[in-house]
């Protein structure tokens, strides 16, 4: 009780002294603000205070937390993770015998090295994951195809296909094994306010200084907490983004995607993508004769194909992958001996590979799920004490498997910017620091989104001359080695911007 009285009197004494004070006279006046008893959690209303509050414990949010935990400069930060998903607190293991979950992501080599740097990749390796080193892209016109190989850029793999829940669980295990101070709040965020630090809240009306205050988060189960920085990693319908008042630009694609896991007889180590009239179908290897299908089409067809019988669906899939909708491309090679042989002097090894037919799908191994597709980009990634990463900041078309990789890039960049801020003693929620993250990532994200959107539009029009142009593009990329190498390294995340790095 005495302490409460002292707390009320102390602010009053300070204001009284500061009003009386005129000049700095000879006896140098000491202006001690705190009188010692201000611990981190010692606020007038006993609300816990964290350095970073991550709203959304999905893959990107957990990657960010794990990255903070793995760097010496940031591992002392108090982290709160707010996500109502019970899987975060559950401790049951993922069983190997289960068929793979249809929700998978293709992880690029840049993301793999990010994970390795955090020490999280070893956890991913304990579960099912499938590397692939070849890729084939063609379309329904049968006029051209492109084959990519990891050997073109002297690497061993082009990417790895991992289930989302494996990624999330691995990141969680990695965090738990480190000694970072974290707390998981199993609830949703209700509201968020910028709040003055408790010491000043009882004093006079000196105007609040937003740069010096904390963010107060109110959760749905009644808890509340303070944080210096709020990280919105809560997906495309981000609540944090709405609360921060950040507007977005974007449009819905007139397409939905069906995803499912299928089985086939042969082993598959290649990623296949065929562009049909209504959208691309992709077959991604998952190991153990399983593969993942991502098939984009218009919403009505998606609904039909979801509800048709398994046998019909499998037939539709095989048609889409093989020779329904259009002929197979010929395995042509330009300058096959003779005058034009000089054109192939600097060829990549994959340019000499023949067109292959994808494996025949024999069985459906999971439910079919349908998702709407859209392009979205937040106009700002940062606001006072709030920063957005992952799908909360941008969503893209899945046609190149880049969505979550952009999110991991955001997490990597933000954690490094925060480490640099801590190194020079900055307040981590300060706009100047956060804007450095934004300038780094915005350019890269917008470039990738523009390219993917361009591809989506280019492949959605069925028009004779345009088809020929696309075929020429297929051939061109296949045979012009510098272009192919550039594309591979850009899509692998090794290059930040296309063409000019």
């Amino acid at each position: 009780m005495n302490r409460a009285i002292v707390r009320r009197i102390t602010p009053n004494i300070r204001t009284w002294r500061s009003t009386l004070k005129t000049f700095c006279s000879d006896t140098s006046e000491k202006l001690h603000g705190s009188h010692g008893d201000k611990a981190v959690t010692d606020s007038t209303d006993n609300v816990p205070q964290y350095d970073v509050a991550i709203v959304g414990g999905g893959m990107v949010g957990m990657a960010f937390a794990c990255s903070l935990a793995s760097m010496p400069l940031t591992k002392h930060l108090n982290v709160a993770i707010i996500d109502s998903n019970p899987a975060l607190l559950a401790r049951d293991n993922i069983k190997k015998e289960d068929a793979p979950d249809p929700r998978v992501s293709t992880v690029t080599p840049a993301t793999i090295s990010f994970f390795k740097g955090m020490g999280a990749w070893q956890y991913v390796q304990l579960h099912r994951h499938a590397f692939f080193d070849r890729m084939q892209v063609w379309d329904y016109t049968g006029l051209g195809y492109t084959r990519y190989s990891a050997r073109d850029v002297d690497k061993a793999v082009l990417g790895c296909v991992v289930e989302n829940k494996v990624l999330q669980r691995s990141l969680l295990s990695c965090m738990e094994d480190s000694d970072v101070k974290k707390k998981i709040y199993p609830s949703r965020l209700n509201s968020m306010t910028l709040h003055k630090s408790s010491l000043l809240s009882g004093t006079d009306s000196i105007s609040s200084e937003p740069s010096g205050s904390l963010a107060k988060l109110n959760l749905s189960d009644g808890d509340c907490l303070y944080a210096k920085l709020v990280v919105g990693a809560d997906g495309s319908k981000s609540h944090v983004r709405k609360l921060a008042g950040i507007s977005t630009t974007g449009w819905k694609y007139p397409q939905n995607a069906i995803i499912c896991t299928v089985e086939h007889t042969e082993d598959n180590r290649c990623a296949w993508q065929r562009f049909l009239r209504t959208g691309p179908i992709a077959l991604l290897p998952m190991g153990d004769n399983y593969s993942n299908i991502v098939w984009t089409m218009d919403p009505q067809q998606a609904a039909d194909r979801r509800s048709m019988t398994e046998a019909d669906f499998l037939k539709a899939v095989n048609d889409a992958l093989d020779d329904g909708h259009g002929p197979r491309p010929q395995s042509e090679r330009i300058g096959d001996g003779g005058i034009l042989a000089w054109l192939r002097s600097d060829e990549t090894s994959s340019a000499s590979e023949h067109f292959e037919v994808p494996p025949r799908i024999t069985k459906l191994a999971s439910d079919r799920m349908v998702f709407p597709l859209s392009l979205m980009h937040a106009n700002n990634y940062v606001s006072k004490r709030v920063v957005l990463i992952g799908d909360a900041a941008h969503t893209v078309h899945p046609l190149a498997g880049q969505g979550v990789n952009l999110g991991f890039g955001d997490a990597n960049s933000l954690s490094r910017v925060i480490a640099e801020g801590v190194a020079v003693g900055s307040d981590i929620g300060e706009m100047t620091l956060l804007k450095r993250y934004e300038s780094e990532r915005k350019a890269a994200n917008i470039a990738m989104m523009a390219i993917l959107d361009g591809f989506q539009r280019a492949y959605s029009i069925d028009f004779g001359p345009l088809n020929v142009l696309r075929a020429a593009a297929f051939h061109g990329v296949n045979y012009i080695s510098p272009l192919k190498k550039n594309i591979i390294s850009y899509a692998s995340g090794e290059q930040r911007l296309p063409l000019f790095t």
Partner: protein
Amino acid sequence: MASKLLLSQLRNITRPTHHRLINPNFIFLLKNQTLIHSRPYSDAPQPPPVGSKPSPTNADSAPTHKKISSSLNQAELAKFSAIAETWWDAEGPFKPLHVMNPTRLAFIRSTLCRHFGKDPYSAKPFEGLKFVDVGCGGGILSEPLARMGATVTGIDAVEKNINIARLHADLDPGTSSIEYLCTTAEKLVEEQRKFDAVLALEVIEHVAEPAEFCKSLSALAVSGGANVISTINRSMRAYATAIVVAEYLLHWLPKGTHEWSSFLTPEELVLILQRASISVQEMAGFVYNPLTGKWSLSDDISVNFIAYGTKNIE
């Protein structure tokens, strides 16, 4: 340059209240009470390097009124909370200083970590060390140093700045332990305070007697302690950039903030530090890239430069 005249007049008015104690330098100061070019002895307002400070003339006029009547106190508080916003408003008039701050902190961190033998990857490398920030202004340097673990004392002769600094530091529990004093380096020396590191960034170009000032800084440091001083070079390039461009073209600073003749060249600084028994170990320059708007450390000491020295062991 009417504003400069006003500035120097105000310095004359305020000076007597800062130096009630008779000290040998007082007579020296009386002699120097010229209106045109007065360089008050280390108690000038501390504007940031090529950052900007909102009209110091208006700010300085406030204390004089305070002495006259106490009925203006509420108005003063309101006025200074308005100014408090801009000191710490990263997008406001102090923006260039906020942008430059991480660069000078990077230099300070790397040299002082080496000096004290601390782990540069630790989040709080200066835990347990006592630092003094001479001419701290609103505390833009003191707060990051406190977050890096140091026990910081910030001193400034302008009381307004101290109040602003105190208000802002209280907002973050990590910085609320900073001791802010409205005093001068000489007074601290008289009180026989000693610190492990003495920092005086962008102060020495506003001091009447740089040699004497350096002697005070040296006296504040423990034997073998560190000193960090940053200032602007007295070169043609500095005249062109820090004065013509920053004050007249871009209006980053009010006109008359810097006086070219009171800049020091690096050689002069090293010499007066040597006479104050501080040996300069490292020096670096700050370079501003107008295209990216970023400052960076470089070997180019022709405009802004920073020097790290150690006090000779007695």
